[in-house]
């Protein structure tokens, strides 16, 4: 707070240079050629706007100072001049034409999506992103990891507050990457400032954009289109690495997948399932159904005491597997691993006072997945 007061006083004292060095006040130049071109265009127009305002406001303030009645100014009765009107219709047109050329050129660059090296399908979900590396058998969800204690001010916020995810999107530098955007429910917008890339993810349609990252690093962004309750809580994290590291990462994903398959064959105990289920639940389900299972009726039903959570397990499995189209409840069949699926269903049937007592084994889920 004290610091804020200090900074505020700096701001009020109008020392832009001091304030600017401490605070981010401008667009980032980014790490791609397009983002640099966009930044330069932004600065060009910005300076043109500054010049225009200096002229316009200059004349205004000059008149306000010199042509005051209190200083004895008499009104000069001129009020029509076709020449002047034509002049200040033409002048802005010339300025606009000057801006128009670089703007058109930059726009054409952003529309070039041909000949990509890597294709990635980006799907928006309420409220997480899914990345599918086309042709690679790599496909995962990327979910906010900021603990709710930080959001609710019970713990100190870490520097990447709200901009951290479990699985970042790993991309190689110096490769042309083409993104294919779509959505599973409502419209989202995928936005990473460092790439100067923002594109709507629209259900039922595919948008494309491409980018070539020049520098390795971590780049963070957020969903930019209001998409419901947790619109502010579905960040994007890109980890840009060298080509060699990227190849290694792809391999690692494949071994991880095999490991997960063998874990599902293990005989899980009730306690293990419940512990795992709680984790899975809090990560994937609690945004809507709430950590204590009470939901947010009528839109998001309660699971504590719900007929489905207490009823036959088939119905329970069905809704979690297949979701319910047209509601926030998406099909988790392909989103969750067999272990996670078994654990979360077991958890929902035996937590918050629900006491069905049955358990679902990962191996059985595996069978169902195979069956479908």
């Amino acid at each position, binding site marked *: 707070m004290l610091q804020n007061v200090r900074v505020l006083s700096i701001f009020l004292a109008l020392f832009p240079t001091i304030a600017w060095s401490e605070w*981010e006040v401008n*667009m980032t130049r980014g790490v791609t050629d397009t983002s640099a071109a966009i930044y330069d265009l932004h600065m060009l127009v910005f300076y043109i706007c500054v010049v225009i305002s200096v002229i316009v406001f200059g004349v*205004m303030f000059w*008149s306000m100072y010199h042509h005051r009645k209190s200083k004895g100014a008499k009104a000069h009765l001129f009020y029509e001049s076709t020449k002047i009107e034509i002049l*200040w219709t033409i002048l802005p047109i010339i300025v606009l034409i000057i801006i128009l050329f670089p703007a058109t050129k930059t726009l054409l660059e952003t529309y070039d999506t041909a000949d990509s090296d890597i294709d990635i399908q980006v799907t928006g979900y309420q409220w997480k992103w899914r990345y599918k590396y086309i042709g690679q058998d790599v496909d995962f969800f990327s979910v906010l990891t900021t603990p709710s204690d930080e959001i609710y001010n019970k713990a100190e916020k870490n520097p990447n507050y709200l901009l951290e995810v479990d699985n970042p999107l790993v991309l190689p530098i110096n490769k042309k990457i083409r993104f294919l955007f779509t959505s599973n429910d409502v419209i989202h917008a995928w936005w990473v400032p460092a790439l100067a890339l*923002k594109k709507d993810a629209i259900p*039922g349609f595919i948008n494309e954009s491409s980018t070539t990252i020049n520098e390795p690093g971590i780049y963070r962004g957020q969903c930019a289109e209001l998409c419901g309750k947790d619109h502010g809580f579905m960040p994007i994290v890109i980890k840009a690495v060298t080509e060699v590291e990227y190849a290694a990462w792809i391999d690692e994903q494949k071994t991880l997948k095999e490991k997960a398959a063998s874990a599902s064959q293990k005989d899980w105990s009730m306690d293990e399932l419940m512990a795992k289920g709680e984790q899975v639940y809090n990560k994937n389900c609690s945004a809507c159904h709430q950590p204590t299972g009470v939901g947010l009726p009528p839109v998001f039903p309660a699971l504590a005491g719900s007929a489905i959570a207490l009823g036959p397990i088939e119905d329970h499995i069905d809704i979690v597997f297949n979701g319910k189209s047209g509601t926030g409840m998406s099909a988790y069949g392909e989103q969750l691993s067999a272990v996670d699926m078994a654990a979360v269903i077991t958890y929902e049937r035996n937590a918050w006072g629900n006491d069905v007592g049955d358990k679902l084994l990962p191996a059985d889920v595996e069978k169902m997945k195979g069956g479908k």
Partner: protein
Amino acid sequence: MTTQVADVEDGHENEHGPATGITRWLFTTNHKDIGTMYLIFSLVMLFIGGSMAFVIRAELFQPGLQLVEPGFFNQMVTMHGLIMVFGAVMPAFVGLANWMIPLMIGAPDMALPRLNNLSFWILPFAFSMMMGTLFMDGGGPNFGWTFYAPLSTTYAPPSVTFFIFAIHMMGASSIMGAINVVVTIVNMRAPGMTYMKMPMFCWTWLITAFLLIAVMPVLAGVVTMMLMDIHFGTSFFDAGGGGDPVLFQHVFWFFGHPEVYIMILPSFGVVSEVIPTFARKKLFGYHSMVYAIIAIAVLSFVVWAHHMFTVGMPLAGELFFMYTTMLIAVPTGVKIFNWVSTMFRGSLTFETPMLYSIAFVILFTIGGLSGIMLALAPVDFVYHDTYFVVAHFHYVLVPGAIFGIFAAVYYWLPKWSGKMYDESLGKFHFWVSFIGLNLTFFPMHFVGLAGMPRRIPDYPLQFADFNMIVSIGAFMFGTSQLIFVYVLIKTLRSGEKAPQRPWEGAEGLEWTVPSPAPYHTFATPPKVD
């Protein structure tokens, strides 16, 4: 509230005085009464919409969730927008039109007085219904004032049906009001008042009315399509049934873009009246001002998709909408240059209406310039849906529409009430508003450029300092409107008696009738030469 207004009208005798009690307001067909009701309604809405902005800014004062849950935050964001646009700004303009157009063109009343009564009385019901949704199961509209499908259809709370009905009612009211303005201006001008002699305020309203008649049905259409999708199994906006969510945005913005001019043109008219008065000089370039408004209105129909640069339009579409949008800067520039030239070599004084008008020109220019930046499609890929956009449209709407309304109220209040407002209090209101406004909206440019998306209840830490300043500014700006209410009450209670023409430099028919304007004016039309 009614009694307070009643003494606006009291204190003068008339052959056909107003009816007494509540029936005066319920059944009135008098343009002055209806104008007053519109203005009071809009003031009430300004405070309701403003208190929602308070909730938003209080939650955003610091990072983290403190006061409200994200779902409720979204409802506040939505309602704030809807109420300010449809409840505060538009009715205030219709109120000004009702009061001033007949007085300025020398007509005894509006052309369609009963329609006038109806179009006002629809509004309280429409807004009660809309605000009632906040108390319904599942909450009120939570999809932003732009209500993009499918968030507002398939995924909407059940109350959306009431929201749709409320929008239909508001639209009907606006269309009736607009028809009334057109008919009045076209048919009831005093003998000798040709179109090119008409006061600027009437010109801007005439064009605004045409815009309203053209686009309110489009809004009605789009909400009807939503209604069909929600209840009758159509799929206008659902790809699963062959529809397209982007279609919604095209139809919405075909309404929405002219709508933003609807919210600014009458303010253009107001400052075009006020600046000449206090510069003691005729408006510079009257003819080009008229042509500029017409040009803006026409262009406003072909720029809508600049709100949609990121939806994945074909390249040709992006280029078309980028160029047309840039073109709008030309007539807008002409207007600004003409206002500045009107001040140039005038004999200026700075009463409250003039202060508001000057602030209007300066701050609207800032908003216009950031508009040019936003028009450039490639850069808009970065600006779009950030606080930079929020800063931009608040710069054109708050100092634009709202300051224009304040200028109008201070300028004509002596005519309406027969009393002068307290000049120092008026100036005090201006300065607190002016500082509060800039403290609120200027830093939004910075957080937007630094990457803060709009419509989020919580934000990453690097935006914290500016957000705190913005919130402090917002509290200041909001609270300063209580000064406005105080000025109004004080004027009505104990203001000094206003002369017929309180402003030395004022011209126009409205200053040829006594202050306060009698209940019936211009029963015999004046002659204009």
